[in-house]
Each structure stands twice: as C-alpha cells, then as structure tokens.
C-alpha cells in the first residue's frame, strides 16, 4: 500500500462527487450572500442541474472504467458496484428535488435554501458510502448522509410532529451509529486495519487463531447497526415515526436513497470483510452469516407487512411497507450468488420508480385533504383519474402484481431464493406478499369504491403531474421489458471484479 503523490491520481473519475460537493458549497454561499432577493426556487433548480451533471459523469465512468480505480490506498474506490448504486442515488435525489420544487412553494419549510443543499450533502454522503473500501471513509459517508437526513427530517420547524420525528431519528440513529462503530472497533481490534480488503484476509486469520467468537460478535454488531439505515428488523422502529413526520419529499428520499445507500454499505462491509472467514469447514458468511441476514429478512417481511395492515396514516403505512421491502431485498444474500447484484439493482431500480411516484401522489393528496389518513384518498378516481390510475399502478407494483417493475423484481428475487433452495424464505415472501395485497388494495379501494368529501377536480401541479405520469409509464414499461435493465447491468456492471477480483466468478 504505497501512498502516492496526490497529483499522480487521475481525479477525473471523482468528477461526480466533486460536482455535488461544488454545487452544495456554491449554493450554500449563494444562499448566504444573496439574501432575500433570490427566489429559493432557483437554488432548487440549480441543485437539480448539479445532480444531472453528476449523473452524466457517472455514466461516463461506467463506460470508461474497465477495472476499479482507487485513490489513496482504497480510501475511495471507483468501481462498478459503487457506480450502479450511485446512479440509483442520483436518480432518487433528482426525483426528490423535482417533487420538492412544487412542494416547498407553500412555505411549509422556511429554510428552503438549506433544504436543497442538505439534500446534496446527503447525496454526497451516500456516494461516498457506495465507493469507499475503507471503514473510515465509509463511516464518514454514513455520517454525512445521516446528519443531513436528521436535519432534513426536522426542517418543518413549526410542525411539532416534524420536530418529534427529527428528535427520534437523531437519538435512534445515534444509537445505531454507536452500535455500528462498536462492531467496527471489534474488526479493527482483530485485524489492525481499516481497509476492508485487508480485513478480509486478516479476519480469516483471526478466526482461525481462536478469536472466532469475537469475529461473530463483530458481524452481529455490524449487521444490527447497519440494519438501521435500511430500516430492517431489528432496527426498524424509527421508520414509521420518521416517515410520518418528515416532509413528504424527504420521506421519499429516506425511503429510496438512504435505503439504497444502506444496502450498498451493508453488503460491501459484511460481504467483503467476512468473505474469507471460515469455521474450519464452511465459509462463515455463506453459512451462519447469511442465515442471520435471512432471519433479518424474514422478521422484516413479517413485521413490515403485518404492521402495515393496521395503519390508518398513509405515510406510516408506506414506512411499514418500506420495512417489508427491505426484507425482500435481503433475500438474495442468503447466501449471495452471482445473481445477487443484478437482483438487488433491479429491485432497487423498480422501487425507485414506484416510491417516488407513490410519494408524489401522496404528497398532493395529503396536502389537499389536510390529512394523512388513508381515508383522504376516498373518491380520488373521480377527482383525478390519472392520479388514481398512476397510484394504482404504483401500488400494484409494490404488491408485486404483473405487469409492473415491482413484479419482475420480486419474481427475480424469488427465483434466486428457490435456486438456492431457500424454501422457507420463499414461502415467507409469498405469504407476506399476499398479506400486503390487503393494505395496498386498501388505498385502491378508497380511491375507486368510496365516496370522497368532494367531487371537485383535484388540482395537481404540472410538474408533479408529468413526473407521476412518466413514472407510471416507466413502471409498466420496465415490468414488460425488464431485460433492458438487467442487460445493462449485466454488460456494464460486472459485480465479481468489484470485490477486488477476490470472488471466484462463480462463488456460491
């Protein structure tokens, strides 16, 4: 591990991160010095420009890069694994900003400028998480995302609920961070390094040298701590309160970007660090480790889907739905196959389209109705057929009914689980999915079958209308032609080399 002169690196691969950092900095200065004269919408549009620009450069990286490029002893590592996730983060943030542009007009959030650049810093944190191979940078990314999210959740300063949820988020997030850090300290103690590719070998040695128990402890703490960000059991309790209290675009941001970032981190840290550990006969991660993740998956699916049945607040319901989705997303890692990467990326991609669509509709409806109760959706079909139909498509996709992106995502996960002979997880997936029909169709029932409080056409901002319409189309389109995404992932992202060529092409 030789430390090179910083000028000897080709920094162009980091352009996406630099762009986001630059825009966040410039926009915050602009906000500071422009005073009241500058419309804060401008900051929103500018931040969107930044995100789009960064996306372009990620695509450039995807096409240019043929092997991982690392900076400063793998502190930052640009590879396909990270790039794929970055595309999801950027897409998610772009959608969040787009929704916000019409949300924030109404003056619910007083610090509009901050709102946008906090989203950018959160995005930067997520990008750092996805592309670092060192515990320290990973942690910095995690904290950058978390701190930005804490503030974003609480930005509706005058709303008691928002304050409460921000407070809960900070406290529980702090605890989760502490647990993660505690796990990391075990790892560092056992290996003496923070570089996860080195950890991979040294942890195996430590395990063989009789520190097996401590290795398992490290795994357990890391898994529990990181479960927080993806809102998986046993660290899911914050989600309903925070989702409910946060401004709706922030909720969508948490549901998609923050969750995807959590997944990128969870798997890079756990999979690589514990890849070589074995208990003498079997590889730990592929036996006990993945079984533990399987239990997390099962618990999340069951808790998420059953608790969602009882919710009357639509954002809380979406939070439990998100917990359930986190459970589904953990399935391909029990144990991972060569397919896991494609499965997760496709599922997250579908989830991205659907979540933002659903939250955009939820935002319009809850704002107009002045309530977040599911009853607020009553009669929506008569007031805005397009919104109702689009929402139905999103809900059908979340429930996993063809022909939607969500269906194929679930089908793909399901197939992977059966190919691994994971019958119990497959069975839980089926049963909980059917349970989920009940609450997803609950909203559909309200929209079509119940009389609403008014029959007047629903006023939908043009931007939101277009976004929802396009997302609904894409949800169906990628449900019918999922091959377009899976082929792209297959051709441009070769997941096995992202793990430093250490995984055999056909690892089980």
């Amino acid at each position, binding site marked *: 591990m030789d430390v090179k002169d910083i000028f000897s690196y080709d920094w162009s691969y980091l352009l996406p991160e630099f762009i986001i950092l630059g825009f966040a900095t410039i926009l915050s200065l602009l906000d500071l010095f422009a005073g009241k004269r500058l419309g804060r919408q401008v900051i929103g549009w500018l931040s969107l420009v930044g995100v789009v620009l960064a996306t372009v450069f990620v695509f450039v990286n995807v096409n240019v890069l043929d092997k991982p490029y690392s900076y400063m002893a793998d502190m930052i590592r640009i590879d396909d694994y990270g790039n794929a996730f970055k595309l999801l983060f950027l897409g998610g943030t772009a959608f969040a900003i787009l929704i916000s542009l019409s949300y924030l007009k109404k003056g619910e959030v007083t610090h509009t400028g901050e709102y946008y650049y906090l989203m950018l810093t959160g995005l930067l944190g997520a990008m750092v998480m996805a592309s670092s191979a060192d515990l320290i940078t990973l942690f910095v990314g995690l904290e950058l995302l978390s701190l930005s999210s804490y503030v974003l959740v609480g930005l509706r300063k005058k709303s008691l609920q928002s304050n409460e949820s921000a407070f809960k988020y900070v406290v529980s997030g702090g605890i989760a961070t502490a647990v993660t850090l505690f796990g990391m300290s075990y790892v560092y103690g056992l290996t003496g390094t923070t570089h996860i590719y080195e950890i991979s070998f040294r942890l195996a040695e430590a395990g063989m040298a009789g520190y097996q128990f401590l290795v398992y402890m490290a795994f357990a703490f890391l898994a529990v701590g990181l479960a927080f960000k993806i809102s998986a059991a046993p660290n899911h309790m914050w989600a309903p309160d925070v989702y409910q209290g946060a401004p709706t675009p922030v909720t969508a941001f948490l549901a998609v970007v923050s969750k995807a970032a959590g997944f990128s981190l969870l798997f890079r840290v756990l999979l690589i660090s514990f890849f070589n550990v074995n208990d003498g006969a079997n590889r730990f991660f592929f036996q006990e480790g993945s079984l533990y993740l399987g239990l997390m998956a099962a618990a999340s699916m069951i808790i998420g889907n059953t608790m969602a049945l009882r919710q009357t607040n639509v954002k809380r319901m979406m939070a439990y739905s998100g917990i359930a989705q986190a459970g589904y997303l953990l399935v391909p890692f029990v144990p991972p*196959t*060569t*397919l896991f990467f*494609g499965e997760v990326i496709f599922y997250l991609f579908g989830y991205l389209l659907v979540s933002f669509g659903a939250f955009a509709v939820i935002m319009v409806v809850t704002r107009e109705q002045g309530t977040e109760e599911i009853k607020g959706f009553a009669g929506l079909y008569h007031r805005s057929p397009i919104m109702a139909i689009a929402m139905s498509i999103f809900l*059908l996709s979340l429930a996993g*009914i*063809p*022909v939607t992106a969500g*269906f194929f995502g679930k*089908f*793909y996960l*399901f*197939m*992977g689980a*059966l*190919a*691994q*002979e994971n019958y119990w997880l*497959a*069975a839980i997936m*089926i*049963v909980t*999915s*059917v349970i989920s*029909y*009940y609450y997803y*169709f609950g909203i*559909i*029932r309200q929209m*079509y*079958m119940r009389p609403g409080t008014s029959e007047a056409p629903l006023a939908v901002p043009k931007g939101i209308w277009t976004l929802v319409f396009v997302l609904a189309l894409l949800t169906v389109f990628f449900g019918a*032609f*999922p*091959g377009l995404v*899976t082929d792209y992932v*297959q051709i441009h992202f070769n997941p096995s080399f992202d793990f430093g060529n250490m995984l055999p092409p*056909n690892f*089980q």
Partner: protein
Amino acid sequence: MDSGANILLSSLVFSPLLAILIIAFIPSRRFGAIKQVGVLGTLLPLILAFWMFGAFNYDTSNLQFVERHDWISIPIGLAQTGTVFAFEINYELGVDGISMPLILLTAIIGTMAAVASWQIKKRLKEFFILFHLLLIGMLGVFAADNLFLFFIFFELTLVPMYFLVGIWGYGEREHAANKFLLYNGIGSGIMLLAFIMIFVVMRTLNIDQISAILTTPEHPVTAALTPAIRLGLFLALFVAFAIKLPVFPFHTWMLKVHVQAPPSIVMIHSGILLKMGAYGLLRMGIGFFPEQAYQFSTWLAVLGIINVLYGAVLAFVQKDLKMVLAYSSISHMGIVLLGFAAMNSIGFQGAMFQVVSHGFISALLFFLIGVIWDRTQTSMIDELGGLAKSMPFVSGIFLAGGMASLGLPGMSGFISEFFAFLGLFGRMPVLAAVGALGIVLTAVYLLRAILRTTFGPTPSRFTGLADAQPMEVIPMVVLLGFIILIGVYPAILGNPMQQALKTIVPIVTGIGG
C-alpha cells in the same frame, strides 16, 4: 416449432385492446356509444375465435397457431451444481384440442356477458375497459404455452375482477372483492412457487417441453427428480388450481363472488374463470405429473364426491337463487374432479365436456337471474313465484337451462356427466356410484328452485313484469343453442379434444397398466 410468422393467436388474445382504446377516447357521459363499442368490441375476438376453430386441424395432437418470440434472458447460477445458464422467458403461444374449445367458449361468453352488461348504469366507461382487460387475461391463459406467460395472464384476470366485483357488485361487494383477491392471491403464489421450482429443475418454461421432459422417465432431468419432490410439486399445483376451481374446502371465496358480483361478471366468473382451474389442473397438474396424479386419483375422486354432494346438499337448503346456483357450481365442478380421477380417456373427456358445458349453462342461468333481479329486485326464492305468467319466455329458458344443468339427455350437461361417470365406473365403481347420487340431488334442488320461482301463485307486485327484451333474448338463445348443439352433436367438442387427450391419456393409463 415455427417462429413468429403467425400472429393469429396474438391478434386474438389482444384484440380486446382495440375496444379499450376506442372506449378510452369516448367521453364518459356518452353511454350509448360506450355500450355499443363495448359490445361490438367483443365481436372481434369472437370472429377470430370462430375462424380459428374452423381452421383448426383436428387430426393432430400438436400445438397449432404457434408463436414464439424471445423476451427476457438473464444468466442465472445454481447453487447445487454451480453452473450458470441463461434464464429465458419467451413469449410463446399455441393451442391444442383442449385449449381451442376453451378459447371459443371464452369468446362466446365474453360477447354474451357484454350484451348482458347492457343494464349496467354506473361508470360504464371504466366497466367496459376493465371488462375487456379481463377478456385479454382469460384468452391469454388458454393461449399461453409458457408458464411465465400463463402466470401473467392468470394474474391479469385478478385485478380487473377485483374492480368489477368491488365497484359494480351488490351490497357486500368490497368484502367479496377482498376475499377474492386474498384467496386467489395465495393460489397464484403457490402456483408461482411451483412454476419456478419446475423452471429451476427443467430450465425451460415452455409448457409443451416440460410435459415432454417430465413424461419421459428416461430423461436425465426427470430421473433426477425424487418422487417426494414430484409429489410436492403436483400437490402445489393441485392446491393452486383447486382454489380457482374451487374444490372444497377452498370454495368460500367463490360463493361471495357469485352472490355479490353483477350478473354479467358472474357469467364470466362462473363460465370461464373457474374453468381456468380445471384447465390448469389438466394441463399442468396431470399433464406434468401423470404418475403422481394417478397415485392421487383416489383422493381426487373423494374430493370430487365431497364437492358434488356437499354442493348439492347445500344448494338444496339455500333461500337465495344465486346461492343455489353458486353451490350448484361447486357441485358441478366436483364432476370435473371425478372425470379427472377416472384417469382414462372417457373420464378426461367427460371432465373437459363438463368444463365447456357448465360454462354455457352457468352463464345462461346467471344471466337469467340477472334478468329476474332486474325486474323484481330480489333473488330470494320465497319472495319470487309465478313468474311464468308475466315472463313466459324467460321462465321457459330458465327451465330449459335447469334441465341442461341436471343433465337431461340431448343437452350438453348429459354428455359431460355421462362421460365422467362412465369413465369413473371403470376404475372406482363404488365411488362412482356414490358420486352419481349427486345427479339425483341436482334434479331435486334445481327443480325446486325453478318451479318455486316460475310457477305457483303470482304475487300481485309481479304481475305486470316485462318479458325478455331483444337485447336479452340474444344471450339466452345463443347460450341455449350451444348447450343443445353440444348435446345433440358432441363430436363438435369431442373431435378436437380426442387428439389432444391422446398425448396425456396413454401416459396416465400406461402407468395404471
């Protein structure tokens, strides 16, 4: 197998799209135009279905009108072998002698149900859009030659049906829609589980290929399957389709739907959707795992008898005409199971005859109940009576439909029951004798219900009821016409089926010796 040169079957399956597109652009207040397009739109699949039925070659058991296109291809690795192969989902359609009559049945009942939807008054535009969507799903189920495609079409029927029951149904419509959704959702889930397991082992989703591989005991893939796994897969498929059929004790959802859904939707539900269960059971359950089906056949017969007798006995005590027919459907689906349980050519023919015949009969009877409800606002047997005086035509057709249902010779019901029991008597005479009791009971409950409603003293409020209107006469006459046609000329169904059954029967009977 020829490739995508032939697009006839796709045109048939997706032909209702045309009506959907046209209706989508008609303003929703123009009721008349929507109705006309809604009904005329079903003529396109009907004409295509008739045309294909005519062009169908009866002398071969091969799939016809085959279409095949590449669709999705994903590399997949398997844990147990460590090999990687492409996971391919293709767009594959094809019909044989079993599915062709069912497609025709779907098209006919589709048109008749559209005509029967004439009296729908609210939200007509959405109704017909969903109706045609449902039609696409049903046609697709019978045309699919690929498990994935079959599943998608199967699920495609679920969503429109949910709305059609939940919005246009009677009082407890939402409850019925939910129950429908959850039961069928579980059924679909189990089916998907079995399909993917089959795929993981077979590495193909083509129904024809899977049948061919699984029924060749020497094939390495087949040989590698342990009997336990086969039995498990067969049972999974059985349960999945038993929910749809419905087999006791999975039938409760179906009663709700029959009672709460609007008449035209019950026509479709009872006439076609239940048949998807029978079709799947024959094509995938028995077609893929004949040996397991053979071992299981006694249980099939027992379940069939339970269905026949349970349905008949409960139909007898019902006060609501709709409930009588709902339980009667359960009873008649039992005969399908009995036909399957016979595990011989005659039995299978009986079962498939029953599928088609009951499709027409139940569609007719539910249509009549809709007409009666339209006039009297009730379907309670006690409140009705003497309808023959004011509605002689409707009552006459009702009696004729009832006769067909209880198996009067010369009508389709007779042929199917006769074949099914004839087949079963050869293998399980005792069970067949017990099951045949159901025929007697059917006569009792149907005659009771029909006579109580059409004859006897006429309550004064029912004296001036209008008899059948021209738009109502069409479905009655057409459906009854087909019932009689099959009854007097069964070869019209028997010929196409015979060749297709030849591919299944020898294998099954070969096991039995």
